[in-house]
């Protein structure tokens, strides 16, 4: 259950629309089965009251939409930001990707989002509704008479299990209470893979990346991927393709994408959330974050606006590329 209710958010949005603070509201629109929620721009009270929704399935990171949705509107756009979204928000501001003046940002607390695949793993297919209002999720299936009660912690999305921060780093207004930056175990999985032998690592990633169908969902959902023209769409870049022809292209796409967002990725986890093939793409980005933290000092993209990422900075004493692998020996 989320601490802020849908009604509170709806009333807030309605009042801001009424008093003219904003002219549009970027929010979540209800779907067919409670979990299939679509981001939407509302501009009137009636549609807000009809379709606006806020529950445990509102995972989409809205920050990226600000790039397109703030264009060409008169007045301001209201956006609701979960703590992790606020990091993307700042990072996009750092990169001048939208006009801050066009946005009225409300920070809302987040108790973590549910992963429908995890729900289905417990309750099976055939879900007709999910009620998120109580302590437990009540899942109604067409195959069962009574709803199945599921504990939210059992179906928490992977990125929320390892939530890095409940603190909002940007907002005009905060609803509810702000949280803290958390001590997450988000690098554990990266460490686990690092501990494998090179052959095991290769097999692991071959297995994962070979499933890639280059649907570009990871890229298109990524708040760091806001390029006007992506190199993978640009025939002159030398890497353009519409489908991966073989495993080289599968690897290359993900290496280059991870490199391009390195130092800019806020670790929001959208890439893995949207991957239809369940490839743990966030691990590539986390690998970069972990490496940069260890080699160049802790850095959280989007923590502040205007900060310099580790790859656009340097010190005279940086490790040599060859030394990066020897760090273990130095520390030991």
């Amino acid at each position, binding site marked *: 259950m989320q601490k802020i209710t849908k009604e509170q958010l709806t009333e807030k949005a309605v009042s801001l629309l009424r008093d003219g603070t904003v002219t549009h509201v970027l929010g979540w629109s209800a779907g067919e089965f409670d979990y299939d929620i679509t981001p939407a721009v509302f501009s009137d009270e009636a549609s807000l009251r009809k379709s606006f929704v806020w529950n445990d399935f509102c995972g989409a990171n809205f920050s990226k939409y600000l790039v397109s949705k703030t264009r060409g509107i008169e007045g301001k756009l209201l956006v609701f930001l979960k703590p992790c979204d606020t990091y993307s928000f700042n990072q996009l501001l750092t990169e001048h990707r939208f006009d801050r003046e066009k946005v009225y940002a409300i920070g809302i607390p987040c108790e973590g989002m549910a992963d429908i695949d995890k729900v289905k793993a417990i309750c099976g297919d055939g879900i007709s509704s999910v009620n998120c209002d109580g302590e437990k999720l009540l899942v109604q299936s067409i195959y069962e008479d009574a709803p199945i009660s599921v504990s939210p912690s059992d179906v928490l999305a992977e990125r929320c299990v390892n939530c890095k921060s409940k603190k909002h780093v940007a907002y005009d207004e905060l609803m509810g209470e702000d949280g803290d930056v958390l001590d997450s175990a988000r690098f554990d999985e990266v460490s686990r893979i690092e501990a*494998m032998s*090179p052959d095991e690592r*290769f*097999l692991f*990633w071959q297995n994962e990346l070979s499933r890639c169908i280059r649907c570009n969902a990871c890229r298109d959902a990524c708040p760091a991927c806001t390029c006007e023209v992506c190199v993978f769409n640009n025939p002159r870049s030398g890497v353009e393709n519409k489908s991966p022809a073989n495993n080289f292209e599968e690897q290359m796409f993900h*290496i280059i994408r991870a490199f391009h967002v390195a130092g800019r990725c806020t670790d929001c986890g959208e890439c893995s959330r949207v991957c239809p093939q369940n490839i743990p793409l966030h691990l590539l980005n986390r690998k970069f974050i972990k490496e940069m933290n260890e080699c160049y000092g802790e850095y959280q993209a989007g923590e502040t606006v205007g900060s310099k990422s580790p*790859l656009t900075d340097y*010190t005279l004493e*940086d490790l040599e590329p060859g030394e990066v692998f020897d760090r273990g020996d130095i520390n030991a």
Partner: protein
Amino acid sequence: MQVKEYKPLIVAFCCNWCSYAGADLAGNNRLNYPAEVKIIRVPCSCRVNPMFILRAFQRGADGVILCGCHPGDCHYTSGNYFTRRRMAMLFSMLDFLGIERERTRVEWVSAAEGAKFAATMTEFAEQVAALGENKRLEDLRCKK
């Protein structure tokens, strides 16, 4: 039947001001190094995009080495510092994906270090030869 000796293909990106001159000096001093090493001249090591490195592997290179001015000596003052970070991160990522870390290297070679250039190339070529053909980052379409 005589088995053809395996010769690795090595692409060396050399910065114009230090390492390319170092390679020239190796030539001036007639210091031998393997012919499998082919040099591409770039203005600065920081010009080398990770895409070039992947491209080389795709096209059949077995090893890629970047040479630049020693830290502090960059003709453009700071280029090699960026190279150092970028390549440290890229190589670490390749390693994470299980691609042999011995196939990539960054080396600082000054214009006076012809001997170092030749020795580095010889040693790197041996190291790559020991690994054998690049199989993990190859594009089969580009094989003959």
